């Protein structure tokens, strides 16, 4: 049982790897995704994920942002093996898990858990909270369940209730407790707060941050809300049409976005301050995100990009290092 009781690498939790590029040797990444691909359909298939590469280090949060259809959720689902990738590899704690069979995958299923957007859709309505949290294999006894419920801000009195008796925020707490039951090292959070009210969002964000600190968890935080991502992540990857167009430390990406799409995306987010909104530079992109079924040739962003030139229409830019630190950008004219 390789993953039964892993000794935690003594990495500092929450370290942003490219905050200090020369800070000596770094622990190995917990998760390495290399050239991951998902093509739906056989001939002329839809390339939902088209060669995605990134790492997640122990104890850190990587944000995966982008608009609908950019492939961020599909990427998350392939990492937890809810979907089988059509290409590329997923390496977890040094072991390639991309093609493991169900039996060999089992220890890794404990290590990699997932939290979903809609807490009600992801909780079995006919099971009590205790059964949901302890899981199909009865990982925990009642005492363990109650302990876990208390960790996520619920109580013993909730253990015998059913999902419909809870509010959205509470139901999401149950989803988090379930994910924690197997003592994972990585949790893929797929839009974990976007279905919740603003005041409840903040509660869940705080809970996730506390749990990360206490349990040394790594998160892959998939979200479309750039404000939330900025708040919770150490590093950010921006996806557009199945590819990562920019990846780097949170501050690098948010304070000095290098890809024109990242710039437009950030400028489009409304800021809750009317005086800022009044004077702010806003890049309104023309058109809609193109369909992954018929991606434009060259750089997939070129039809909406103000900087696009001839080379952008013929050649897809590779993801290349940009400036100091570990930022990478896929743009012929990154600035």
């Amino acid at each position: 049982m390789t993953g039964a009781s892993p000794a935690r690498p003594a990495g500092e939790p929450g370290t942003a790897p490219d905050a200090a590029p020369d800070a000596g040797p770094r622990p190995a990444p917990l998760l390495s995704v290399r050239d991951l691909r998902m093509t739906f359909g056989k001939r002329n298939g839809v390339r939902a994920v088209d060669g995605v590469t990134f790492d997640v280090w122990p104890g850190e949060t990587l944000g995966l942002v982008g608009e609908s259809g950019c492939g961020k959720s599909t990427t998350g689902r392939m990492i937890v093996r809810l979907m089988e990738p059509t290409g590329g590899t997923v390496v977890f704690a040094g072991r390639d898990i991309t093609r493991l069979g169900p039996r060999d995958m089992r220890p890794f299923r404990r290590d990699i858990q997932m939290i979903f957007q809609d807490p009600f859709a992801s909780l079995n309505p006919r099971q009590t909270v205790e059964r949901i949290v302890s899981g199909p294999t009865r990982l925990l006894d009642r005492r363990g369940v109650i302990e876990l419920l208390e960790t996520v801000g619920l109580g013993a009195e909730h253990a015998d209730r059913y999902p419909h008796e809870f509010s959205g925020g509470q139901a999401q707490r149950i989803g988090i407790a379930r994910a924690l039951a197997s003592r994972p090292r990585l949790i893929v959070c797929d839009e974990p707060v976007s279905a919740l009210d603003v005041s409840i969002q903040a509660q869940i964000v705080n809970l996730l941050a506390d749990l990360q600190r206490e349990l040394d968890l790594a998160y892959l935080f998939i979200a479309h809300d750039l404000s939330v991502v900025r708040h919770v992540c150490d590093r950010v990857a921006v996806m557009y049409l199945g590819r990562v167009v920019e990846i780097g430390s949170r501050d690098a990406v948010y304070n000095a976005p290098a890809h024109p799409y990242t710039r437009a995306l950030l400028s489009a987010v409304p800021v809750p301050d009317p005086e800022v909104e009044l004077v702010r530079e806003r890049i309104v992109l023309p058109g809609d995100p193109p369909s992954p079924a018929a991606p434009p040739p060259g750089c997939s962003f070129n039809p909406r990009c103000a900087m696009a030139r001839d080379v952008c229409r013929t050649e897809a830019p590779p993801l290349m290092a940009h400036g100091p630190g570990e930022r990478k950008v896929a743009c012929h004219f990154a600035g």
Partner: protein
Amino acid sequence: MILRVRDLRVAFPAGTAVDGIGFDLDRGRTLGVVGESGSGKSVSSLAIMGLHREAAVSGSIVFDGEELVGAPASRLRELRGRRIAMIFQDPLSSLHPFYTVGEQIAEAYRLHLRVSRRVARERAVEMLAEVGIPEPRRRAGEHPHRFSGGMRQRVMIAMALSCEPDLLIADEPTTALDVTVQAQILELIRRIQRDRGIAVMMITHDLGVVARVADEVLVMYGGRTVEHAPVREIFRAPRHPYTQGLLASAPRLPAGGAGDSPDPAAGSVAAGGSPDPVAGGVAGPVVKGRLRAIPGSPPSLLAPPPGCRFHPRCARYAAAPDDACVTEAPELRELRELCVLGEVGEVHAGRALRLVGAEGPPAGPVHRTACHLAETRGGSR
């Protein structure tokens, strides 16, 4: 004054969803209505549209001098779509899948203005062009499923505006859209409003959207108004603990991109520390980690808490409990002294002195809040 709402109540058999709200809305102005799920913001807008069948609507809704509460259904039908138009969150479920987009726009236009088919079809094409749909003549002949989410919302806006309404109610019009498309749609609504001088009631949960488009803001909680003020005052000097909490709990982006100095940690006050996110001091914490959450969850309409509906979650009440918060619903009161906010204070100082006439206190751009504990804390600033 195109719309004057007073003491609006909407009661369903199960409970009261809206419990006495009021506001004024002028032509060319935008009122942002903010609240979380169950706050009554959508129910209020449906009441203005006269779309409640099972509910008891009371109070007063005066549209362009005409009382709508108790008006015959036939009259409401005439106004609806013609002079009061509405767009919804999900454009796909508001469009008929069987008819072409052009037919659907033309139908409403023909119904209300009794013009020929040909004129109505031309109008549809013209409206599609106005809302920025490329190749409008060809697109008018297509069905809704051929349009993307943003394009569908443009179609809804074209339909809403085809009869030249005086009031547009937009209920979460961009919530289902991606941010880059949201920016396009908000820009479009603003341009159309400027060109035509219509009044807009923008219902949203997104404080950023409100900051971008609204002139004044009504904050709703548990079916009641907790604060009503010009947009800059809501964000600069929120007075109600709920408004303050909402602003403090929303994560935000730096203002202009580069050159932002990160604020020092806003600290973790959530667990019983300093109770009040001081008015105005709402700049979002930039450090990774905790947000200032509001504890608890929004009230259920089936069993709303007594007194002030926010008191079970209120940091101010927790710090200095007052019996009034539990026993009496606080009235929406004008703040006695407007805080001086430099130019903002000057702009609104004149309006704050507006006389209280026979029709009750003006609901215009003065700062009003419903909190028993507001003055004790607010006055000093």
